[in-house]
């Protein structure tokens, strides 16, 4: 690693820390319904939106009402994307004349974008028309991200309010998240990306003849607008198949840097929004610190592993499969940030990472996408672990565990367990199924532990709504399309609904004022404890599986064997 690369890492995390309170404060005002500098322009649009859709903006919902609205909206979104794919052959904006999408793939893709997973079993440029990409995927890129933000804002209200009943209005949260946060940020980022050379047009693919004399179809399309939201919304679904390794998606080191920053920006800032809304920014920073420590630790291990001598090849820093234009550090940072943040985009292939680096990327996902995580999803997932930590360790101070003065009782534990259990169960059971059936095994590109990692990674990615692929696995089969699709549903709503239930049960509780007898959740000890609980719960669940994938592969590589 060069000093310049190190400097870039420092700049990256430094900027992230600086931007967190800025954007965090802005978002806190949005969720509280306060005026911001965007209000003069956007407020009229917002009001008209409510009037046209019949939303009663000042009527709040209890958690059940909120959940119903959310599920209905998302299911409708699913059917729109599903329908667009089945009908794209006869719809306009299809200059390449792409045919109707196969049903299981359409199911998988619609689920994928509705659940903010953005797993792609298909190659974008050869499968989906511009209409599908823009009306289907790009819309879902916004609203699935907005859904995540809405859920976390509802949970925060549940924690912040005392003895109330409602946790907000889903429609309002959805509109405001989209209109005030995602759209303006995407607009800025898209413009910057266009300035760097990212594609934004409606042209058909261009035929070109390469230096070696081969003709190649250079894909075109409205990429920049979709890429901005793909990163900001921790979606990750590429416009082109190779995603951000494609020069039209990610042309320059600056575009690479900005995209990486965009991936973590909103999830990081939400911790500060959270702190402000519950009246203690410190609480937010503790969560931010826990996330940052886990990210940097994982990243460091990945970098060490990559830059160590590879016994199979006898060299250190193997470039195969990395983003050669930006180097190993940028490939690994991208890998760490995207797997931490539930973003499915790639600029290098995880499969080409060393077994340990790939394993850590996988662990980032398996822990539940809570190291910053998806927009909204990362924070609410983290808060689930906060509740678990408070419950387990809080008893040790001799009081019924309480968080922010609210008692953690049977109902919250039940829901928290459910939210942790459901995605884990999907990963384990489906990986087990795929690893002993012909339908599962035949899609592998490699045998042995590496082949196992491919399967495990796919289900981990789907169940935790990450969306990145390990590369190698041919997931476009009915078996994988269906199983992975189901995993995405479970991983999304199996967490969102328990989270909203927790918001609903916490909002009615009284808040005990803090005292020296209260379990402190705003210090370094708590951050450490939180990390320990996450690692222990995550590791205990997935240690056997990881042992047979990346760990054994690493040990074999050390012995000079590869698969």
């Amino acid at each position, binding site marked *: 690693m060069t000093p310049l690369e190190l400097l870039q890492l420092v700049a990256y995390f430094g900027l992230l820390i600086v931007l967190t309170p800025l954007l965090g404060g802005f978002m806190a005002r949005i969720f509280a319904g306060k005026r911001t500098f965007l209000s003069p322009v956007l407020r009229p649009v917002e009001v008209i939106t409510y009037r046209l859709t019949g939303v009663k903006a000042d009527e709040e919902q209890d958690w059940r009402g909120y959940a119903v609205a959310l599920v209905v909206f998302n299911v409708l979104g699913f059917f729109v994307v599903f329908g667009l794919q089945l009908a794209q052959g006869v719809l306009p904006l299809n200059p390449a004349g792409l045919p109707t999408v196969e049903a299981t793939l359409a199911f998988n893709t619609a689920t994928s974008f509705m659940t903010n997973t953005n797993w792609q079993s298909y190659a974008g440029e050869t499968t989906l028309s511009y209409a599908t990409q823009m009306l289907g995927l790009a819309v879902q890129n916004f609203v699935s991200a907005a859904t995540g933000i809405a859920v976390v804002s509802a949970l925060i209200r549940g924690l912040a309010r005392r003895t109330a009943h409602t946790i907000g209005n889903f429609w309002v949260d959805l509109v405001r998240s989209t209109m005030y946060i995602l759209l303006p940020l995407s607009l800025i980022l898209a413009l910057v990306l266009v300035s760097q050379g990212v594609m934004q047009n409606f042209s058909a693919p261009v035929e070109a003849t390469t230096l070696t004399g081969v003709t190649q179809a250079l894909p075109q399309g409205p990429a920049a607008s979709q890429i901005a939201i793909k990163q900001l919304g921790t979606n990750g679904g590429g416009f082109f198949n190779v995603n951000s390794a494609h020069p039209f998606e990610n042309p320059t080191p600056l575009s690479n840097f900005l995209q990486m920053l965009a991936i973590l920006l909103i999830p990081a800032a939400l911790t500060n929004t959270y702190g402000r809304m519950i009246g203690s920014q410190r609480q937010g920073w503790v969560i931010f610190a826990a996330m940052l420590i886990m990210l940097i630790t994982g990243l460091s291990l990945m970098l060490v592993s990559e830059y160590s001598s590879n016994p199979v090849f006898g060299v250190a820093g193997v470039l195969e499969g990395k983003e050669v234009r930006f180097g190993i550090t940028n490939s690994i940072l991208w890998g760490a940030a995207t797997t931490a943040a539930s973003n499915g985009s790639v600029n290098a292939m995880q499969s080409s990472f060393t077994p340990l680096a790939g394993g850590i990327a996988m662990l980032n996902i398996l822990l539940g996408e809570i190291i910053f995580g998806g927009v909204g999803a990362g924070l609410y997932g983290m808060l689930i672990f906060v509740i678990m930590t408070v419950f387990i360790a809080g008893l040790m101070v001799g009081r019924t565990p309480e968080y922010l003065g609210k008692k953690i009782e049977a109902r919250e534990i039940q829901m928290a367990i459910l939210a942790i259990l459901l995605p884990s169960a999907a990963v384990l059971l489906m990986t087990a199924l795929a690893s002993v059936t012909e339908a599962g095994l035949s899609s592998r590109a490699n045998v042995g532990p590496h082949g196992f990692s491919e399967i495990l990674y796919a289900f981990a990615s789907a169940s935790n709504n990450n969306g990145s692929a390990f590369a190698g696995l041919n997931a476009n089969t009915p078996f994988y399309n269906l199983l992975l699709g189901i995993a995405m549903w479970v991983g999304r709503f199996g967490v969102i609904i328990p989270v909203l239930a927790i918001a609903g049960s916490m909002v009615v509780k*009284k808040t005990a004022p803090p005292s020296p007898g209260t379990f402190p959740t705003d210090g370094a000890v708590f951050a450490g404890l939180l990390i320990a609980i996450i690692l222990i719960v995550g590791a205990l669940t997935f240690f056997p599986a990881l042992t047979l994938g990346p760990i054994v592969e690493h*040990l074999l590589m050390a012995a000079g064997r590869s698969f």
Partner: protein
Amino acid sequence: MSNQSSARPLFEASILRRALLDALRKLNPLQQLKNPVMFVVEVGAIMTSAILIRDVLSGGGTEFSFNLQITLWLWFTVLFANFAEAMAEGRGKAQADSLRKARKEMSARKRIGDREERIAASHLRLGDLVVCEAGDQIPGDGEVVEGIASVDESAITGESAPVIRESGGDRSAVTGGTRVLSDRIVVKITSEPGSTFLDRMIALVEGAKRQKTPNEIALTILLSGLTIVFLLAVVTLRAFTAYGEVESGIAQTTATLPVLIALLVCLIPTTIGGLLSAIGISGMDRMIQRNVLATSGRAVEAAGDIDVLLLDKTGTITLGNRMATTFHPAPNIAPDRLADAAQLSSLADETPEGRSVVVLAKEKFGLRGREIADLKAEFIPFTAQTRMSGVDFHAHDGQAPRSIRKGAADAVKQYIIAGGGRVPNEVNAIVDGIARNGGTPLVVSENADILGVIELKDIVKGGIKERFSQLRSMGIRTIMITGDNPLTAAAIAAEAGVDDFMAQATPEDKLRRIRKEQDDGHLVAMTGDGTNDAPALAQADVGVAMNTGTQAAREAGNMVDLDSDPTKLIEVVEIGKQLLMTRGALTTFSIANDVAKYFAILPALFGALYAANTGEAGPLAALNIMALHSPQSAILSATIFNALIIIALIPLALRGVNYRPMAAAQVLQRNLLIYGVGGLIIPFVGIKVIDMIIAAIGLA
């Protein structure tokens, strides 16, 4: 029962014997269902037993000795957990037995109109009137409606000194099973047979009606959730192993069903799962050891959450009574004249305050006690109207008549002014000064002159200030309740170091204050004895009624202190905290243990996979960081450790973790170090040691 307040030894032979039997009885799967974690262990034990029997019958099974050992240790795991629960229950049962002796068949003298009828106590109904005379056992709970008697309550409280019970007032409640020592009382029965205080007490200590507390339910959910997680991990592990076997072409002979069951049992939180109910029962038991009866485990748990204590000043913060500490003479009055008059006016005053004046006069001025009869004096008793008492000497033997009065400052001053006398400004200054310092001024006058002021002071109990500052560091606020005026109250509050006080507090004020604190999110505990305390006791999150109190108070609270010691409230809170801490500590310990168990069992399971040549150690043998002897010994050691740790922790579960009053942050750090970090390290050592023993004696 008379030694109830002295702690029972942790392992008493008779309790131990009964617990061993109960442990076997509790193997009934229907009983185990209440505890999901241990139920899973039992199902696992049944499955390995079935495999064992199948192997014996079919003559097959190469791993007979190994499987047998696994099976035995799984059964031991269940038995150990049962034993822990039975031990905790046994201690209660032993206490219940001695209580039952007090409940042997009694007869009652029921009063019907003017006559009496002898009936069995079990036929008494609510509202019946019964007569009890010296030597009679009181047949049921009730309220004295007539008479006064001394009662031996040692059957309930363990306290052998008799107590006075009288009709009216706050000492009217009597408990069935206690014995009248003198005099005669008529008691109105207030409870149906079978639901008397004694019955409830027996049920409580036996744990017959034990229900899971809210926190226990939440913890059980967490433990069940973890059990499901590990069930998934182990079930899918078989499929992953199969993948590895196919890919590496090496059969992993250790991945048999008994081994997978052993792995599951090691991973699920059996330590806390096995000890959870023992911890809860022994928490109530510790209350009983201190002579506090909690009506439910929920109340004990709530005690740990208390962050506001309402404490009655008298008896809790100060010694029962005020004492005279100084005589302040008025201008131009000789100090011994004041002392003499004060003494004379107090001779007939049998109240502790009155006696303390006599004592002070004797100590300071060497004035001896005199008999009123010898002095030919007339004693003027205290009345609520005059708020004065005193003594009148009629003119005799050439002495002028003397009329001495002693009483509340304003009452005596009015009396003097009405009689044409004058109150010197200096006296007013003294009176104000005393009141400001928390004392009570009593003004003494003779005829038309004010002689001076007696200063009565509350004596704050030794060590109470330190106690309160400890409580403060634990985040518990203390509020002193007193009928005193605000000035006096403030001075005592400052001296005792309470956080707040309520002066001139009426029962309604108390109730209002509790509601307000609760609205602010606090949990409030208080003690009370009077009927007018009942609403506040019921409203408080923890209401400790004094056993000497009225029936209404005892019904309203969720705890009864048999010793009637208001200071006990602080201990009650500590027991509650200790209970929750013990639960948290063992949960943390249990979860932390799993790390080592993975490092024991996973290499044993996967060690051969992807070996370069069949029969050699595979790459994953590198995970065997404890260098355990063989795959079999590793699995066995982990299973044995998992079972033995339950036995090893039974004393901790029964006694509770060490408790010291500290701030939450310190408590957390301390317990994290012991049970978190300790829980990570101990099993590595324990498993290694067991493995060395197993290898040495050739068990696997």
